[in-house]
C-alpha cells in the first residue's frame, strides 16, 4: 500500500521529494513482504505434505490410556472411567452432537453394536449434555458407557485432534491404535475388524 499516502498534497516540493524517497524505501520492504510471507507458508505447506493429519498420534500409541473419571450424561446410569476399560479389546470413540463427520461413522458404530462385535465407549467431547442425549435418542446409542468431557480435558490427555476419533484399547488399558476422522467402511473392513479379531483371539 505504498501509494496510499493520505496527505493532502499541499506540502512543498523538497519535503515531498524526501517523503517520496522514504516512501520508496518502505515501498521496497513492503513490496517484498508478501513474497516473504508466502515463503513461510510454502515451507509449512511442504512440511504438511509429509504429515498426515489423520495419522496416529505417535506419543499415545502403546501407552496406557490416561487416567480419567467422567460423569454420565443426564439420564444415563454410567459415566466412564479408565478403570472401565477391562475387555480384551474395546473402542473409545470421541464424538459430539455438533460434529458432522460423527454422523457419517454413526451407522457403522450402530452396526458394531448390533452385532456385538466389540464394546464401544463414548467420550462426549466438548458437547452440551442435553444436545448429546437428543442426538443419541435421534440416531441411536451405540455406546456401552459414555463419559461427558464437558471442557475437553480428557480429550487433551488422549491427544484428541478433532472429532470423531476412535482409540482401540487392549485388555491392559493400553492404546493400541487410533483412527482419526470417521470410521469409513473401508477402514472398518481393512483395518478395524481384522485388528479386533486378532486381539480377541
Amino acid at each position, binding site marked *: 500500500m*505504498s501509494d*496510499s499516502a493520505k496527505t493532502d498534497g499541499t506540502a512543498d516540493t523538497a519535503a515531498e521529494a524526501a517523503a517520496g524517497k522514504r516512501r*520508496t524505501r518502505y515501498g521496497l520492504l513492503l513490496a*517484498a513482504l508478501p513474497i516473504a510471507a*508466502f515463503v513461510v507458508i510454502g515451507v509449512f505447506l511442504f512440511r*504438511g505434505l509429509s504429515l498426515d493429519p*489423520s495419522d496416529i*498420534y505417535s506419543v499415545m500409541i502403546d501407552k496406557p490410556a490416561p487416567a480419567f473419571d467422567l460423569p454420565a450424561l443426564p439420564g444415563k446410569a454410567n459415566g466412564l472411567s479408565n478403570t472401565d476399560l477391562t475387555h480384551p479389546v474395546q473402542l473409545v470413540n470421541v464424538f459430539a452432537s455438533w460434529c458432522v463427520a460423527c454422523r457419517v461413522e454413526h451407522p457403522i458404530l450402530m452396526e458394531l453394536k448390533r452385532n456385538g462385535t466389540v464394546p464401544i465407549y463414548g467420550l462426549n467431547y466438548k458437547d452440551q449434555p442435553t444436545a448429546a442425549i437428543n442426538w443419541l435418542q435421534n440416531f*441411536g446409542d451405540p455406546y456401552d458407557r459414555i463419559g461427558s468431557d464437558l471442557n475437553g480435558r480428557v480429550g487433551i490427555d488422549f491427544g484428541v485432534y478433532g472429532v470423531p476419533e476412535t482409540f482401540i484399547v487392549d485388555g491392559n488399558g493400553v492404546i493400541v491404535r487410533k483412527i482419526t476422522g470417521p470410521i469409513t467402511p473401508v477402514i472398518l473392513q481393512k483395518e478395524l475388524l481384522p485388528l479386533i479379531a486378532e486381539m480377541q483371539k
Partner: protein
Amino acid sequence: MAPELGQYALVLAIIVATVQAIVPQVGAYRRDAAWMGVAPAAARVQFLLVLFAFGCLMVSFISSDFSVVNVFENSHSLKPLIYKISGVWGNHEGSLLLWILILTLFGAAVAQFGQNLPPTLQARVLSVQAMIGVGFLAFILFTSNPFSRLDPAPFEGNGLNPLLQDPALAIHPPFLYLGYVGLSVAFSFAVAALIEGRVDPAWARWVRPWTLAAWCCLTAGIALGSYWAYYELGWGGWWFWDPVENASFMPWLAATALLHSSIVVEKRDALKSWTVLLAILAFSLSLLGTFIVRSGVLNSVHAFASDPTRGVFILAFLVFVVGGSLTLYAIRAPSLKGGGLFRPVSREGTLVLNNLLLSTACFTVLLGTLYPLFLDAVASEKVSVGPPYFNAVFVPLMTPLVAALAIGPMLAWKRGDLAGVLGRLKFVAALAFLTALAVAWYAWDIMPLAVLGLALVVWLGLGVFREWAERVRLFRWDIVDSWRRARGLPRASYGMSIAHLGVALMVLGITASETWQDEKQLIMRPGDVETISDFELTFIGAEKVPGPNYSATAATFVVTRNGQPVTILQPESRIFPNPPMETTEAAIRSTLAGDLYTVVGEGDGLGGHAVRLYYKPLVIWIWLGSLAMMVGGMISLSDRRHRIGAPSRKQAAEPGTKNRDPGALAAAGAGD
C-alpha cells in the same frame, strides 16, 4: 474410443497452451504484431480442444463406460441421468477437467472481448493465462488422468457419493470454479501489468468486469454450497467453517476487497500497487484452496481422496505461480507511481477501510485454516480450530464493515464531509437506535448480539435507501425530477445499492435465525402431536419407500396452525447400498417469514421414530441476501461502461474536477 480422443485432445491442448504461453510473451517484448497475434487464436483453439475432451468424458459417463477407471469409481448404471452428468465433476479428475475447461473458456473470452485492449497487454494477459493452463494440463495428464482405462472392464460402477447426488451440488462446483478461475483473469491482468510496468485507470476498467463476473459466480457457488449443507446435512446449520468451505471463502473475501479497491484505481488512480497485490492474492488463494482440498494436508469432511504426488505437484505449481508473481511484484511494485491523494475521511478512505477489514478477515480465516498444520509441523501437536474461533474474530471485524457500508457511498471522493453525511443519516441512526432498544427489551436475555445485528440491519438497509434517495433527490418534493434522476442513475449504481442491501438482508437472516430458532429433538409415535413455534405437527407415521438407487424411510407430518391446515411435510432418511451410506433429506416448508424444518431418523423398534423439528425465522434471507449480492453484481456488470470496456481516457484523466458538485458526484461515482 471417446476416452482416447479426449486424451489426444488434452495432449494437443497442452502443446497449444505452451505455444500460447511463450510466443505472445516474446512478441510483446519485441513489439512483433504477428507473434502477439498468435495469442487470441491459440486461446480459442485451446478452449475448443478442452471442450472436446470434456465432452468425451461426459459421453463416457452417460454411456456408463466402466472400462474408464474414473467412470467405474464414480458412477453407477442405475443413477439418474442428471447425476451421471454431474458425476463428471463429482470427483477429483473430472472436476480438474472442468476447472481447466473454465480456465480456457475465460482465455477464449479475453481473446473475444478484449479486442480493444492494447495489443501488448492482451498478448501478455493471454500468455500468463496459458502458463496457468500448461500447469493444470500437466497436472491432469501426469497425475490425474480422467481417461485411464481398466482391463477387464467391470460390469457395474461404484456409484457417486450419495451426499453429492443432489441438484444444488450438481451445479455448485461449476459456479465455484467459474469464480475461482475467473479470478485467474484478474491475476493475469495483474501480472501482465507488472511486466508492462504500468497500472492506470484504464487497466482497472478492463480488470473490473472480469473480477465482478468472477465474484458473482463465486458468491453464487458459495451460497449454493451453504444452502446444500443446510438442507442436505440435516443439521439446520449452513456454515461449518470447514477447511473446504474456508478455501472458497478466502478468495471471496479477497475478491470483494479487489472489487472495491479497483474502483479507487479507476476513479482516482490511487491504491494501485495494493490493487495489483490483491489481484495476485485472490487467485493465489484460489490455488491454495485447490491445494488444501486435494492434497489432504488438512482434515475435512468433503476433501477429495488425497494423494501425496498430487500434493507435491500442486505445491510446486503454487510456488511457481504465487512465488513467481509475488517476486515480480516485489521487483516492480515500488516503481508503480502513486496517483491521486486523498484524506482519510473520503470515499477512498472508506474503501481503504473496507479493504483493511476484508483482508484482515481473509487473513484470520487463513490463519484459522492453516493453524492446525502449523502446529503439527512445529510442535507435532494436533488441534482443530472450530466455529468458536471464527465466530469470535468475525463479528468484531464485520461490525465496523457493515456500519461503514452505509456511510461510504455517501462520502465525496478525495475529501469527504463526515459530519454532513452523518447529519443526513440522523434519522437512519435514530431508527437503528430505536431498533436496538426494542430488541434489547425483547431479547437481551437470549442473545445480546441480536441487538447489534438488527440495529446494523436497519442502519444499513435504510442507509442504502437514504443514499439512493439523496441521489434522486427524493425528498425535495419534485417527484418528476426524482423519477428522471432515478432513471438516469447508471446501472452500476443500482447494482451497488442492491448488493449492499443484500448484505443487510444476510445479516438479518443470520441474526434472526440464530436468535429465535425453536428446536425440538424427540421420539414421536404415529398420532403424536408436537408444537413448534406456532405450528402443530402431527406425526402420521413412517414407511419404507424404494428409490431409484436407495431405499428410504419416509415420514409424514401434517402441519396445522391454529387448527388450519398448512402443509404436509415428508422428510426421508435414505440408505444407499453403493457406496453404503445414509443421508437425511430434510423436509422444509420455506417461507419468507421462516422455515419449518423436519428431519426423521431411525426407528426405535417400538413404532416410534426419532425426529428433529426446527423453526428458523427469516433464515431464507441468508440466501436471498447472497442472491441480492449476486444480482447486484450482475446488474453492475451489465452497465454500459463495463460492456464497452475501453474507458474514456478523458474522464479518467480529470477525476478531481467532477467531484465538487454532489449531483455530478452521484452520476460519476455511481455504483461504486
